[in-house]
């Protein structure tokens, strides 16, 4: 009976109920987006970092992977040292660089990764084959489109280019063997992969035995922190980053985002709460005589409160469900804008949908809906019956 009474009371002022529900939906959408944003970027980074099973990364001291152009020397010796540790199953050295391909009157410039194709964790092969030979190169779709190259084509590739003199350094003819998708690649970024030795040789004597990054797989997750300490002791002049420490670093860099999300999320929740409270207060004040008569007839104070709280819950849940859809649509749209930021891996999601986050925001809103109905209904249910009826009759 309370359920149908609450429902019919809301239907009695259909337009007002609809507008309030829409208002709550907007607040819910904003809250959901903020919750998704506060946790999404971190979780997305975690998924990206763990997607290929590497738990440790070694970068030049004081830097994050590919944060700068700095490199680590004596790659061969470091690889040998690392492979000698029985707790390390895989070592993948990566050298980052830039290559230039003259095509007619223009020059296509692309990022290049020197990798060991057998253990690499930077790309997924879409078609063709890995760059297994010293003169092989694999490129992503943006690279193949920009160069117009097809599988089997030979490209003149240089690692250095002087735009004033239009001269190239470190030139080499490379055959396109594969079409790949780079896991850490940014949107619209031209990128290629070739053997580590090939890119090192193209860089000349300065980069003969250099790497920008080592990615390491440990035998067990439990050994990661021990290995991190061991590498610090045995490989001087490097930063050793575990997935967890990288996430700590990400957290520090994203603290601004989280604070923003927290503030905006709190504001959304408060706006939703105020909206429902205002509506409930107006609705209760309009129905003082009905509520008082119900009390006179013997309806308990608790049941009057329950019925009005139910109305608040209906509006809140309706708004929250609509807000869930609205929030997902806006998150998707905003994500498409933010993900195209230059330099950010395209696989990173700013707004990652997590059921827990969705339930949390729905739960918070429902609680606020309950809280919003309690005060006005309790106040109305506690009015002195005889006096209120007399005043209502006079009014």
């Amino acid at each position: 009976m309370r359920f149908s009474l609450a429902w019919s009371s809301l239907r009695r002022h259909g337009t007002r109920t609809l507008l309030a529900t829409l208002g709550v939906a907007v607040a819910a959408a904003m809250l959901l987006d903020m919750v998704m944003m506060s946790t999404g970027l971190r979780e997305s980074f975690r998924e990206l970092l763990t997607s290929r099973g590497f738990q440790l990364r070694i970068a030049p001291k004081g830097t994050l992977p590919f944060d700068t152009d700095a490199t680590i020397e004596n790659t061969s010796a470091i690889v040998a040292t690392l492979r000698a540790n029985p707790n390390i199953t895989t070592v993948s050295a990566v050298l980052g660089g830039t290559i230039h391909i003259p095509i007619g009157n223009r020059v296509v410039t692309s990022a290049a990764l020197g990798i060991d194709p057998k253990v690499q964790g930077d790309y997924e092969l879409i078609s063709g084959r890995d760059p297994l030979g010293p003169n092989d190169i694999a490129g992503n779709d943006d690279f193949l489109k920009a160069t117009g190259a097809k599988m089997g084509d030979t490209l003149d590739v240089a690692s250095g280019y002087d735009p004033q003199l239009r001269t190239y350094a470190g030139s080499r003819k490379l055959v396109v063997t594969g079409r790949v998708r780079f896991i850490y690649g940014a949107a619209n970024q031209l990128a290629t992969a070739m053997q580590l030795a090939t890119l090192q040789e193209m860089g000349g004597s300065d980069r003969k035995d250099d790497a920008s990054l080592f990615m390491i797989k440990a035998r067990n997750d439990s050994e990661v922190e021990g290995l991190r300490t061991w590498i610090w002791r045995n490989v001087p002049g490097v930063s050793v980053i575990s997935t967890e420490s990288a996430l700590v670093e990400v957290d520090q860099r994203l603290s601004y985002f989280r604070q923003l999300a927290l503030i905006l999320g709190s504001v959304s929740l408060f706006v939703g709460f105020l909206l429902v409270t205002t509506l409930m207060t107006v609705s209760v004040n309009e129905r003082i005589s009905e509520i008082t008569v119900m009390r006179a007839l013997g309806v308990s104070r608790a049941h009057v409160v329950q019925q009005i709280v139910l109305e608040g819950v209906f509006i809140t849940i309706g708004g929250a469900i609509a807000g869930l859809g609205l929030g997902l649509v806006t998150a998707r749209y905003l994500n498409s804008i933010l993900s195209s930021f230059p330099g950010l891996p395209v696989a990173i999601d700013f707004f990652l949908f997590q059921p827990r986050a969705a339930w949390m925001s729905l739960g918070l809103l429902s609680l606020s809906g309950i809280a919003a109905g309690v005060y006005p209904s309790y106040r109305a249910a506690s009015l002195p019956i005889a006096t209120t009826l007399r005043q209502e009759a006079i009014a």
Partner: protein
Amino acid sequence: MNVVEAKDLARDYEFGAERVHALRGVTFEISEGDYVAIVGPSGCGKSTLLNLLGAIDQPTHGSVSIRGNPVAGMSDRKTTEFRLRNIGFVFQRFYLMPTLTARENVELPMSEAGLGKAERGDRARELLKYVKLGHREKHRPSELSGGEQQRVAIARALANKPAILLADEPTGELDARTGAEIIALFGQLNTDGTTIIVVTHDEELANAARRKIHMRDGLIVDG
């Protein structure tokens, strides 16, 4: 057997520094099956007395017992439960729930009393037939005339088989013809065993009662 016993019942109201004695100490009994009209000029304390009998107000001093149960001094929860089981209210302005149908309005007190859906539906239909509104059970108050609304309110008041039916100016909002129908309905109810206490200015309604209690200045002057 007395269904209502009031002893030295008084009710004062504070209006700022002023103290108004609405009821100055009234004592009376009403027997089971009686039909009593409380009459008197405006402001004589009729409605105040009805509110105290109906346990929607507390006396400043004195006591009220309904079927031997003292009403004054009970907790809000117990008083509410007492009203639900023992008192039927009929108001001048009907006060039906506008979003509920006639049948749902009659079901409301039964639902609160914990009756099952089928049982309360059957009883609500039976009561609506009794007040000659069986054909209007699915109509909302806005679709009913004033007299019909008051009859639904009477059916609602009878829902939990109360010890007494209290009516405050039940014909006050109705025209003479519809008022006469309500007076006839009260007569029928009393004949069928319901104890009725009605506060009214309506002479016809007062004359239909078996007993009249005349009030003036917060006191019973006759009856």
